[in-house]
């Protein structure tokens, strides 16, 4: 049975390099991972994103072999790995706190896995040197882990798990232990190294920014299931459900009722305003829906927006609401405004600070109009 699936998958099928098939893990009747299926392409960086307890770590640990699945199968390059012990899997993991061996030097840490493979000594030396070169740690080879900074330790951990040239690299919160500034620098470096080595990579993170920056594709997880799998832009711009919309980035949500449902547009009424959405939805008249709107898609201005400004909105009064500025938060590269609409609802709108001095300075308590384009509205039907 397992073999037939493996054969149908076929060795070398790069779009199903890692195939997870209806995988579940139960802890005392509670499903940590619930019937999850997923294909990861060869050379892809795939991120499992979710808050703590969503099952992402359990899934990663099953891939590493530290947890045995309750049911389901896993194939790596056509090979059934579900029952393989961790030390036989061609998979290496970078641990959240790195788990560097404190009693071994940097060099010995990187060589640890190679020695277990009984690689000839000169080849080990060659490979370790190469790895330390990639992560720019050659001068630190003789140091012990505690003599290194957090960023250096992270690179040792990376070198150690890349040294064996695994088919699959697992990263558990790879940048979680680094401070913010270092994290930003390291994100790109890490991606560059992974891409240059060409290893397929599955990572776990709770940080949506990290997932968006590093991953080719993201799976948003909740309660052991995938809510949405897709490219970062897809997940951000067309979230499939309320949870995904709220989890990734900031979002304004409106409750509304479908009033007009045409193939090329829909009109949704909500207490704040009437929304004109210039794409069709699968729904019926009078259906209750949620409308998601990203803060950066909302424009604020003192005068009422003209029809010319809102190309897509057919008539006056759509996709626009009056309100008062309730709060201003300056973030440097952008400013976020909290706008209290006439209905009492507070929405967030952000404006990029492209110029050093703003011409029209918006102030607290000021009356303004908030408006947005019909194509920027996301309708969540479920």
């Amino acid at each position: 049975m397992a073999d037939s699936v493996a054969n149908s998958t076929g060795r070398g099928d790069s779009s199903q390099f890692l195939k997870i098939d209806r995988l579940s893990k139960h802890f005392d009747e509670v499903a940590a991972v619930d019937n999850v299926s997923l294909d990861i392409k060869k050379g892809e960086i795939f991120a499992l994103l979710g808050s703590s307890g969503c099952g992402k770590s359990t899934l990663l640990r099953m891939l590493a072999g530290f947890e045995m699945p309750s049911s389901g199968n896993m194939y790596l390059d056509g090979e059934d790995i579900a029952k393989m012990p961790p030390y036989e899997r061609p998979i290496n993991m970078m641990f959240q706190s790195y788990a560097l061996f404190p009693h071994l030097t940097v060099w010995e840490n990187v060589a640890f896995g190679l020695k277990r493979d009984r690689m000839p000594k000169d080849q080990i030396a060659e490979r370790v040197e190469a790895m330390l070169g990639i992560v720019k740690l050659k001068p630190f080879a003789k140091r012990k882990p505690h003599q290194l900074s957090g960023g250096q330790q992270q690179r040792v951990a990376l070198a150690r798990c890349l040294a064996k040239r695994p088919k699959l690299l697992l990263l558990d919160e790879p940048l979680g232990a680094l401070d913010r500034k270092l994290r930003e620098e390291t994100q790109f470096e890490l991606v560059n190294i992974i891409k240059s080595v060409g290893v397929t990579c599955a990572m776990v993170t709770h940080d949506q920014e990290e997932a968006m920056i590093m991953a080719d594709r993201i799976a948003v997880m909740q309660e052991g299931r995938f809510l949405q799998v897709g490219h970062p832009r897809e997940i951000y711009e067309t979230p499939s459900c309320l949870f995904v919309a709220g989890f990734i980035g900031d979002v304004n949500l409106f409750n509304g009722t479908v009033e007009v449902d045409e193939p090329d547009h829909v009109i949704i009424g909500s207490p704040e305003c009437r929304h004109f959405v210039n794409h069709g939805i699968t729904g019926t008249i009078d259906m209750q829906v949620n409308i998601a709107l990203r803060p950066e898609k909302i424009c604020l201005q003192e005068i009422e927006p003209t029809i010319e400004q809102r190309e897509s909105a057919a008539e006056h009064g759509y996709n626009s609401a009056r309100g008062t500025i309730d709060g201003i938060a300056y973030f440097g590269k952008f400013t976020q405004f909290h706008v209290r609409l006439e209905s009492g609802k507070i929405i967030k709108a952000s404006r990029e600070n492209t110029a050093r001095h703003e011409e029209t300075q918006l102030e607290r308590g000021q009356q303004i109009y908030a408006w947005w384009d019909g194509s920027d509205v996301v309708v969540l039907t479920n």
Partner: protein
Amino acid sequence: MNITKSIGMNGIVRLLTRNWGRRTVIGIPYGFLILFFSVPFLVVLKISVSSTDELGIHFQDLISYADGIFQLKIKLSNYIFLTTDPLYIETYWSSVKFAAINTFICFLIGYPFAYFMARSPASMRPALLMMVSLPFWTSYLLRVYAWKGLLDDNGVINNILIWLHVIHDPIKMMHTGFSMTIGMVYTYVPFMILPVYATLVKMDLRLLEAAKDLGATPWKAFWLVTVPLSKNGIVAGSMLVFIPSLGEYVIPELLGGPSTLMIGRVLWDEFFSNNDWAMASAVAVSMVVLILVPLAIFNKYRADSGGVRGI
């Protein structure tokens, strides 16, 4: 200017009073040890190198002053006698041997015990730890005596074996090297378990996962990660067992045979049977020196690995 100066003065005063408090806290136990360990030890050291008067009863001062000449008299004959008399050499050797065997057996029993205790569910560990320290609730003298009742020719074990018709005549267990070793291991095994447990329980178990992830079998992971990381505990436990068992007196006296030679017993004999205080003191001083050797090795090891954090 004045203000900063007064703050500075206050700071100094505070520093002094704080140091004073610290010194008191450290000073009291040190004072106690100087008074009741160092001073007596110096007395013993002095006796060991002193010559007696004509009657052989009173020890003479090491330093004397007469006719404008200082005289320092140190008698080393006791020490020379120690190194030449086969009895003493044999005793020291036998003591080291018994202490080493005891340490080794304690390690063989204690390490797996500590390992499984550290790897047991966190909720069970306090109970297990309690059971290890439970024997300390009874005087160790009583517990050693209890072994007498078990191992005697007429003791519990022999009686049961005879009653079961396994043997006809009692096995001679009491007053042998066997009974003494049992008593020593029984007494000292907690001193091995506790420090080893302390290092094992602190160990980050993700290191084992990392080792397995990198291709180490569970046994290899144990050997290459767990054992090196528990080295400090093993060394500390071995010292805690080896040092006191080297000078052990009560257990060889109660459980050992007439032929089991231990420094502690020889020391007792020299003091109280032979009344040769000078010789006895020399034996005692030599024993302390003998113990200092492993302690120095231990300290050097600690200093070498002192930089390793998180172990």
